[in-house]
């Protein structure tokens, strides 16, 4: 039976043998009844039956099933609705039908994967929009301080975070960098932003805010994750700046009087590393004169590499700040430093999120020109995305504007 079902040729062979046997039996019968008495019509009729038999076998066993398969294949190729082909046959026709079913099943899986991919991309896009919406929509109006910021995530979602929160006579300014980038980093970034916004309404100093943020964060993130942070408090009345370091990059302070930068380790321990950081961090003052600039950044900036694999580094950042800090407001400083960075890294792939913030002390009763500028969080353009601006060009755009 298996021999019969395994191949069309076997099937035809079996039919042929069967019919030949019948024919021989018929001929033997005719011979036994004296074949000369058999009329020509009976002979022709027998041949016709023989022929008809083979035509029917050919039509029902080969042509019809092949037509069904071809019709479904045409429908598939034309993008029309097609059906699976169900058959018990294990011969060539069965193999083709099985192949067709497998191909269509794979197509359906790929199609579902593409749909799922599109859905996930849409969700990533939404998450990216939500994250951009979390970042401040515009540079803050801070009495005595001219602030400008710029950020660019390495992926759709980033782990860099900054915000300006004014509560009463204090403005809290922070920059944070979560381990890695992408979705996990973005979730932690969002969590911290929410915590900081809530805690600034409860506590009046940066120290308590950082201690409480760490306490809440540690219980909610996995042990490989942490977030470095630099939290500043600018007192409007006293015109004084204090900060709390939580394992963040060095603080760069440009001194207008000397034209040089002071580089200060920020100290502390990154958020999420220990359950209680209260003994490991402290709030320190940053004495500022008018014209002094505080520059904040994430490690994506100093660790940005050029095509030769060389890192931008702290020294280049300091030199760039010293070159532009006296001449420009915070927007110009951010613009030119980011331009310097972009020229250095050229087209090297951005491995990490990059954030740069400049805060220039402009004196009592003053607000920086850039403080009115809006932050374009929708495009997050970095300097290499916008036309190059000459140093003397008065029409500088705020890099986030």
């Amino acid at each position: 039976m298996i021999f019969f079902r395994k191949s069309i040729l076997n099937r035809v062979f079996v039919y042929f043998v069967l019919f030949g046997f019948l024919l021989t039996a018929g001929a033997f019968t005719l011979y036994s009844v004296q074949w000369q008495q058999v009329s020509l019509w009976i002979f022709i009729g027998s041949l016709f039956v023989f022929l008809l038999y083979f035509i029917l076998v050919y039509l029902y066993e080969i042509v019809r099933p092949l037509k069904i398969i071809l019709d479904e294949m045409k429908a598939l190729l034309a993008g029309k609705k097609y059906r699976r082909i169900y058959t018990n046959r294990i011969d060539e026709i069965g193999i083709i039908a099985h192949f067709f079913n497998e191909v269509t099943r794979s197509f359906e899986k790929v199609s579902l994967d593409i749909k799922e991919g599109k859905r996930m991309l849409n969700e990533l896009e939404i998450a990216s929009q939500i994250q951009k919406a979390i970042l401040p929509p515009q540079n803050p109006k801070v009495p005595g301080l001219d602030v400008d910021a710029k950020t660019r995530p390495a992926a759709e979602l980033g782990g860099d975070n900054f915000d300006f929160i004014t509560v009463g006579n204090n403005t809290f300014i922070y920059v944070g960098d979560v381990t890695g980038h992408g979705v996990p980093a973005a979730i932690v970034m969002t969590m911290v932003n929410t915590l900081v916004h809530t805690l600034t309404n409860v506590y009046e100093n940066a120290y308590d805010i950082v201690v409480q943020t760490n306490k809440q964060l540690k219980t909610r993130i996995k042990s490989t994750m942490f977030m470095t942070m630099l939290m500043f408090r600018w007192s409007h009345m006293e015109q004084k700046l204090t900060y709390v370091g939580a394992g963040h990059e060095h603080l760069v302070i440009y001194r207008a009087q000397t034209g040089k930068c002071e580089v200060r380790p920020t100290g502390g321990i990154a958020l999420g590393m220990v359950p209680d950081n209260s003994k490991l961090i402290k709030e320190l003052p940053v004495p500022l004169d008018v014209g002094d600039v505080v520059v904040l950044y994430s490690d994506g900036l100093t660790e940005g590499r050029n095509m030769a694999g060389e890192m931008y580094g702290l020294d280049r950042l300091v030199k760039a700040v010293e070159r532009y800090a006296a001449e420009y407001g915070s927007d110009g400083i951010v613009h030119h430093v980011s331009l310097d960075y972009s020229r250095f890294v050229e087209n090297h792939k951005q491995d990490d999120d990059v954030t740069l913030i400049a805060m220039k002390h402009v004196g009592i009763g003053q607000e920086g020109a850039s403080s009115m500028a809006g932050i374009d969080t929708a495009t997050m353009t970095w300097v290499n995305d916008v036309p190059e601006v000459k140093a003397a060009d008065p029409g500088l755009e705020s890099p986030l504007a």
Partner: protein
Amino acid sequence: MMKIKNKAVDTTKDFTTVAVEGELDKVGLEDIRTELDEIVKSLETNMFVLDLADLKFINSEGVGYLLMNHYRLLKQDKKFVIVHAIDHVKDVLDVVGLLSIVPYFDSLELFVKSL
């Protein structure tokens, strides 16, 4: 490319030293994670010493992995020690505050002397 350069067990002083080589970032981490996880998991001594003399670069993901190992060993009542990092790597570990929770020695000899 990151790899485990050497592994040595000192049963008398009860510590295992693992020396790594390369760059401990996202890519480098994938190169050694399985092997290093296995070493930490099946650690027979009470101290695990990571020798970073040939580690050229570390980023926050690398630091995160070291932090996880610190807690993993702490959970087993064991101690995680870092030795011999080059200046740049030591700066990174110091800046994020890891060295305020994980003991650090400038060389393996200094660590052995401290025992």
